[in-house]
């Protein structure tokens, strides 16, 4: 177990290193010149040169990367060119909001997805089943910005059930989480349905029924835990999807998370922030997958970590 964990962590570090190299290279190619952006529109060439010198932009790329990496090892993600603040400060300040939103998203997609899938499987081939599955398809097919705009328009603007955007209270969390979770809920309800149908065919379900167990016990004690197994593995992957999703959802709802930070940074080509957020996201994705792999054996005793 310890060896497994260590190996996975080493792998994770290597992947992050790779991500940092690729991102650094990509951003190096961006035409916008940071020194000019900092120096402002009326800057004299001497001023620009001086800033370039200070930022080390004149160095060859590998030296620049090395500087970045050694700072990174000290937990320093660099300074934003335009916000003139440590990237880590900016990210940490906004991370709680994003994590809250993601947690809300996961809860939404699991609660919605699993119930829909379960009900559909138990009412197989009924009208309800068909209805739910069409709904799940629509969920999978609807772009998040459309869902977001729609929910905002209907539930906040027209019906006034929820606040229009903002951050802080539970009621403000509902619509963004829902928007973030709709996609996953669609996938999960489909996965849950087919997993349930598959599990219900299994021999051990027949065994459970042959023991004379009550129907609900057979479903919730024997079928559901087995059907949920493939979904747990998916939740790790969700982190990556969410990392993309929050850029859209946060900008629709004005949610003060790293999605907005990223978006603003991209629009203004604030390279250190883009770089930092990419690394943090990659970190989250790698950790999410690791976590999923670690949780899997707790749910399914057959899985062993090697």
């Amino acid at each position: 177990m310890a060896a497994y964990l260590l190996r996975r962590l080493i792998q994770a570090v290597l992947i992050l290193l790779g991500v940092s190299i690729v991102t650094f290279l990509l951003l190096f190619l961006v035409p916008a010149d940071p020194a000019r952006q900092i120096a402002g529109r009326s800057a004299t060439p001497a001023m620009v040169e001086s800033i370039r010198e200070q930022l080390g932009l004149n160095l060859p790329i590998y030296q620049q990367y090395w500087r970045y990496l050694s700072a990174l090892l000290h937990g320093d993600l660099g300074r934003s060119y335009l916000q003139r603040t440590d990237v880590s400060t900016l990210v940490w300040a906004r991370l709680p909001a994003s994590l809250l939103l993601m947690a809300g998203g996961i809860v939404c997609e699991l609660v919605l997805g699993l119930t829909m899938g379960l009900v559909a499987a138990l009412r197989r081939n009924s009208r309800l089943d068909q209805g739910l599955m069409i709904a799940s398809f629509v969920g999978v097919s609807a772009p998040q910005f459309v869902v977001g705009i729609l929910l905002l328009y209907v539930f906040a603007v027209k019906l006034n059930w929820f606040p229009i955007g903002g951050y802080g209270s539970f009621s403000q969390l509902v619509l963004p989480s829902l928007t973030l979770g709709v996609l996953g809920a669609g996938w999960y309800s489909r996965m849950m349905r087919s997993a349930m149908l598959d599990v219900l065919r299994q021999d051990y379900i027949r065994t459970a029924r042959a023991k004379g167990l009550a129907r609900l016990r057979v479903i919730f004690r024997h079928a559901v835990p087995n059907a949920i197994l493939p979904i747990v593995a998916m939740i790790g992957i969700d982190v990556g999807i969410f990392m993309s999703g929050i850029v859209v959802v946060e900008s629709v709802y004005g949610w003060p998370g790293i999605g907005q930070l990223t978006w603003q940074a991209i629009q203004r080509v604030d390279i250190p922030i883009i770089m930092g957020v990419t690394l943090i996201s990659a970190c989250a994705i790698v950790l999410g997958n690791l976590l999923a792999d670690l949780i899997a054996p707790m749910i399914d005793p057959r899985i062993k970590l090697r």
Partner: protein
Amino acid sequence: MSVATAPEPVPAARHAPFQPPGIVGQLLRRPLALFGLVVILAIVVLAVTAPWIVPFDPNEQTFDGLTLEGSPLAPNARFWLGTDLLGRDLLSRLLYGARTSLLIGIAANGIAVAIGAFVGIVAGFFGGIVGAALMRFTDLMMAFPALLLAIVLAALFHPSLWIVVLVIAMVNWVQVARIIYTETRSLAQREFIEAERGLGAGNARILFRHVLPHLLSTVVVWGTLGISTTTLLEATLSYLGIGVQPPTPSWGNIIFENQTYFTSAPWLVFFPGLVIILLALSFNLVGDALRDILDPTQKGRH
């Protein structure tokens, strides 16, 4: 005994007593897939024939397309779906947008599937150092938040139709590679592959005759399901303003241009949103049905 060489009767229960209909036939039997097929077909036909059927030039900012104060017109007899903020006919733009969205959906996804399949097969079938390196690279790409990568790439290479196609392909091949890889790996361990080796078959023969045909269904399924994801990604990129360049209409950038008007001119968001959902939904429906039909594990499990 005399029965020694008599062929046994084929037990009826092991397979359906009739020749199963072809893939298209099976698709047509499923109402949802049929619906999807019809919608896709309709959209394709409309997109292809757009130049002949559009009521207006999609880029023409018609003189009477805006009110005197410069507001867009709601759907009316002249502009069936209303006009956009520049006084262009929304219907015409949607029809032309279908071309862009479909083109990107099909081309980007086609490239993604091709790259993904290549990487997955090479890594899964041959393994070795090259295979391991390819899979590590895939892992690395998996760790990138897809949208973020797409945004950075799109911002880097000034967006144009083909750049968008390439960017989406660059982002989307990863999952395909993963899936094909796993599938190839499990195929390579199937007993019939071992049997082929036992017969003396070489790698090339096994790969082309016995592995590829099995991967075909995965490729077809991803080919269709992926189109919907691709269309959505294009829409999202356009929504964020880094997609296809104006004035070329795509469904995503139509929404992008008009999104702030969702309260004052809802049709400008509603109609393109609807067609995006409809197209993605249709590809999903068809892809899902194809998966059911082509999935070998579903066979014999009547």
